[in-house]
């Protein structure tokens, strides 16, 4: 006779980087269902559009999240630029692409470290984050900030990045590839790691589609959908294919993210090779009037930015649909039928970013 019990999981838990709460209904050691609840750190940043003008709002948008901050700033700017019909110079488009891919690189590296920590491989966690530090150094050199770059602006970028610096980036990326080769072998081949990831938390392709998942979580289940294919910024001119895996388990999610790391390095190298000379910012005149829904592929998945202006300096509405918000129903589905001991790893496989979700 098995017993049903409810175990509260989080918001403060050693495996969770950010506060999310789950009520887990357990039958013995197996999870029957999970009820998510969020909202511990809701900040109401969307409401700030009424107090800050549309140019100051770029800085607020960047601070939605500490990891995908560049993408949030860029998504917001893209939406406002489309409302105001501003054409961004080509060089700025390329630089934005480079910074977005660098963000993806450091976000996925951060995830690899956190995952290693979640399944108890602490030395791997440290080695992974050592690589991440090198990326952060590059970003600090170019933009002046380690995670919040404050370089994107409505109409382009606020600072140009000199060509010598880009050449230096290309050189450092070559070294990074070597570093990643050493580290990723531990994730992909180590038996201990595989035993924690293979076959755990399988999400089928139908479920992934129905539950509206996005990002690597979706692509690991075999859906070929990557918003970068919608050709915003300079992605149209770069050669790449969405990374897809068909197993749908935790291991597949790990593989997809590792492949995306190499893809990002490749994309940055392509962009550095193609980048044209010229201005990086178009002067913006007037006030936003109209609406637009921009989408950006963040490291964690597709983010939507809805902007509505009414001809004054303050926008009427700014709404962000973050990838983690869309992935929560998928997470709840994945948890069903799993062991209680795997909950920590499974929550991390969707790469939750709760600060994004609660804006």
């Amino acid at each position, binding site marked *: 006779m098995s017993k049903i019990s409810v175990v509260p999981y989080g918001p403060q838990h050693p495996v969770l980087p950010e506060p999310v709460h789950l009520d887990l209904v357990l039958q013995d050691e197996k999870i029957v269902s999970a009820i998510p609840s969020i*909202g511990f750190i809701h900040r*109401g940043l969307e*409401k700030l559009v009424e107090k800050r003008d549309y140019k100051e709002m770029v800085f607020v948008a960047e601070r939605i999240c500490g990891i995908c901050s560049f993408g949030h700033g860029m998504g917001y700017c893209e939406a406002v630029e489309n409302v105001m019909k501003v054409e961004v110079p080509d060089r700025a488009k390329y630089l934005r692409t480079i910074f977005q891919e660098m963000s993806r690189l450091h976000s996925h590296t951060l995830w690899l470290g956190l995952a290693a920590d979640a399944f108890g491989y602490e030395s791997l966690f440290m080695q992974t984050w050592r690589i991440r530090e090198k990326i952060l150094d590059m970003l600090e050199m170019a933009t002046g900030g380690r995670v919040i770059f404050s370089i994107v602006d409505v109409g382009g970028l606020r600072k140009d990045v000199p060509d010598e610096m880009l050449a230096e980036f290309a050189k450092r990326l070559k070294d990074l590839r070597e570093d990643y080769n050493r580290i990723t072998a531990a994730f992909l081949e180590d038996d201990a790691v595989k035993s924690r990831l293979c076959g755990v938390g399988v999400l089928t392709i139908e479920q992934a589609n129905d539950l509206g998942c996005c990002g690597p979580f979706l692509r690991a289940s075999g859906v070929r959908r990557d918003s970068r294919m919608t050709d915003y910024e300079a992605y149209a001119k770069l050669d790449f294919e969405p990374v897809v895996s068909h197993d749908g388990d935790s291991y597949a999610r790990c593989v997809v993210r590792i492949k995306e790391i190499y893809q990002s390095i490749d994309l940055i190298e392509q962009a550095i090779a193609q980048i044209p000379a010229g201005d990086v910012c178009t002067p913006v005149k007037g006030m936003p009037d109209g609406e*637009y829904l921009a989408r950006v592929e963040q490291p964690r998945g597709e983010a939507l930015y*809805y902007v*509505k202006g009414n001809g004054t300096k303050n926008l009427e*509405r700014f*709404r962000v649909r973050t990838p983690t918000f869309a992935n929560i129903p998928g997470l709840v589905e994945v948890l069903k039928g799993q062991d209680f001991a795997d909950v920590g790893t499974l929550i991390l496989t969707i790469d939750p970013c709760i600060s994004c979700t*609660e804006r």
Partner: protein
Amino acid sequence: MRQPIRAGEMMICEIDPDTLLDEVTKLKYSEWRLMQICATKTGEDSYEVLYTFGHGYRLRSIRLKISGEAKLSSITSIYPIAYLYENEMHDLFGIEIDMINIDFKGGLFRTGVKAPFK
């Protein structure tokens, strides 16, 4: 559906709140997936609700206008995952939603002020 408005790449169709479930069912059967639901405050006591759907890389939105007191019918019977967006809308804007499959009753976001965006 009435005439679509083109705003950038987004197609928006204005609909009547009573026909919401019909329109959403139609979209569901032509295999559109729900991408987001968002409310916008447009006046003292009036709101706009925007439902965005995706099909591959295409986007399509439907929009309806409601007043503060009106109850909006939930689309969770058609798209079960809409419960998060609808609870969010209820918690932030105070819009009453009828018949949600998982109703947090104002407990999804723990805000200090009730319905802060109202």
